[in-house]
């Protein structure tokens, strides 16, 4: 139900034209206000604190939409941030993104490299080791990613910056959460890239018939469908894997699986589209550029598979199947 309500806003105020405009530097204020005024930033805040009390599984549908609409704001992070604190009013107003890492330099300044959505965020939450820290982006020395259209930035704050966030969430859980949100963003963007490619394969005529009638294209579409389906179910399983927070191990599986698929799905989508797919005017690029950015964000499949590999080797489970069963299963109630 939350998803339907959010989609009705996105379908009007987050069209490809809006996304392009915001990427070119137009302020996202109208979209941000529409979402905030409808109360969606408080989706995960407890109901007794005026929030929506949504479940993680409920949030999954919303984050998939954020991917499918290429929402150019850290909406998923801002909603999920409510689960990091006991009271939602501990968080600053506005849009909040998560830093994949935070390093302290010898002079004491704090450096967050390659922070997704930083350009359109008012604050960044980062893992300071012992505590989560929240930083205003306005106070940072900011270096844009330099990647066309990508709002990622690297940020440096002077000594003593950052407010401690009273949070019960451990480092490992915070890292997994950033990855999990991007897994669902990837799942949503992949489904949209798939839908565009299906439509194109049915419409585009060569040799007197739609190219989707050619077996070579059909088999590529089938492979794409398999990876889109695998990605969705891996991400969905992780969102449904635990409470109060999703199981970090399931988050690792979700990010690894979706990240691996992202590259393949983007590649097939462009291959089927031909030259029109790599133009600015055609919408596919809105999604495939994000597939590549989000594949890396908060750890690619290389990172998360290595973490899982270590767990697997150290596991005391009797068989591979026993270990694998433990990864995505929801904890028994």
């Amino acid at each position: 139900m939350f998803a339907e309500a959010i989609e009705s806003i996105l379908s009007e105020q987050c069209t490809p034209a809006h996304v392009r405009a915001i990427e070119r530097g137009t302020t996202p204020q109208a979209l941000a206000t529409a979402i905030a005024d409808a109360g969606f930033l408080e989706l995960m805040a407890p109901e007794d604190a005026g929030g929506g009390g949504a479940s993680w599984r409920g949030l999954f549908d919303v984050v998939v939409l954020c991917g499918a609409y290429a929402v150019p704001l850290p909406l998923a992070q801002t909603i999920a941030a409510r689960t990091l604190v006991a009271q939602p009013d501990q968080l600053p107003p506005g849009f909040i993104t998560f830093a994949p890492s935070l390093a302290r330099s010898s002079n004491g300044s704090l450096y967050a490299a390659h922070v997704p959505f930083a350009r359109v965020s008012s604050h960044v939450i980062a893992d300071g080791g012992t505590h989560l820290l929240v930083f205003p982006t306005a106070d940072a020395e900011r270096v844009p990613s330099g990647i066309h259209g990508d709002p990622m930035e690297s940020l440096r704050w002077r000594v003593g910056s950052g407010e401690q966030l009273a949070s019960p969430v451990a480092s490992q859980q915070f890292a997994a959460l950033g990855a999990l949100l991007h897994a669902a963003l990837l799942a949503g963007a992949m489904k949209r890239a798939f839908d565009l490619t299906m439509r194109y394969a049915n419409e585009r005529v060569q040799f007197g018939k739609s190219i989707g009638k050619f077996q070579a294209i059909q088999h590529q579409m089938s492979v794409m469908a398999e990876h889109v389906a695998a990605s969705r179910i891996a991400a969905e399983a992780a969102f449904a894997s635990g409470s109060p927070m999703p199981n970090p191990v399931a988050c690792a599986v979700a990010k690894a699986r979706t990240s691996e698929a992202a590259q393949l799905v983007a590649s097939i989508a462009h291959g089927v589209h031909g030259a029109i797919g790599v133009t600015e005017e055609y919408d596919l690029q809105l999604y495939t550029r994000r597939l590549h950015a989000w594949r890396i964000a908060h750890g690619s499949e290389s990172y998360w598979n290595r973490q899982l590999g270590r767990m697997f080797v150290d596991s005391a489970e009797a068989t591979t199947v026993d270990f694998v069963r433990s990864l995505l299963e929801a904890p028994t109630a």
Partner: protein
Amino acid sequence: MPDLLDNLQLARLPRAAENFRREVKEFLADHLPHAPAEVRSRSWMAFDAEFSRKLAARGWVGVTLPKRYGGADLDSFSRFVLVEELLAVGAPVGAHWIADRQSGPLILKFGSDAQKDDYLPRICRGEIFFCIGMSEPNAGSDLASVGTRAVRKENGWRLKGQKIWTTNGHKCDYTIALVRTSGAPTDRQKGLSQFIVDLRLPGITIRPIVDLAGDAHFSEMFFNDVELPDDALVGSEGDGWKQVNAELAFERSGPERLYSSIVLLDRWLQFLRETGTAQDKLEHIGRFATHLATLRQMSISVTSKLAAGESPVVEAALVKDIGTEFEQMVPAVIEAALGADPSQPCPDDLVRAAGYVSQVAPSFSLRGGTREILRGMIARGLGLR
């Protein structure tokens, strides 16, 4: 058109099925024959009547069949768990495999009361074993072009033709053969019917075919004017194609399309743990876990549709295609790893297991429908054909 991709929703194994898992593990702890990894890797290709009868005595052959026929009346989820646990350790389940998975359910669904009373209790007791009678020399991927023919006679049928690639055909008691009962091969899916053929009848010759791994796991069978009784016909005359497709949804989606290389993977991990040499293999190992965890959820999703009485033929094709890709990736990676440093030899039994699985791995995406056929089915399901 309903969106194929929306049909694969997250599903969970119910509590009862998970509780059942413990019983299966206890049984296997007592009864799994000790065997090296290369033997256990044969799992559902391995014909071990004695093991199948032990399972049957425990009530676990024909597990989804009703109790009145001696079945366990378990749902598809519990069958998933049973099969998963058996394959996880490479139990030799080939003897009863086909009857449990598809012949029994087919007879239950389409058979007459007399056929059910005759065959199902014997299947459940592990007394009779079935094989699949689909492929022919000129009807592989193009299954509808089968040329074996049954002609109606007084009080029965006369069967003439040939089947091939029949797993364990030379060791089984019955096959369910898809044959033409009217028209010509050009009539395609029309005019096909299914028969339960007693493989001991006069006029039947079965020859094992030795495969590249040295096993005679499959066979060819010749029907030379075999006289079949009237009640050999199962289901309705002319409905063979429809019935076969119902069978294929059971055949394609189960854990056996994910776990064919699992014993090898277990053995390799054991070696890496014992020698402390996993460090530079962690990404591969984790990737296996990531893929398998996801595939398992996809397979459970299809199982939930079977449990709901649906026939998820396209979804099953999708899971089988991507599942067998994983099954083939495992030996491909392990083979490279085993030869990564000639100065560090690996244990003989691990090398043998890798050798066997690498040799037979091409068949993972052939048996039960080739990769190309499955991708064509998925494309049709997507609305492209």
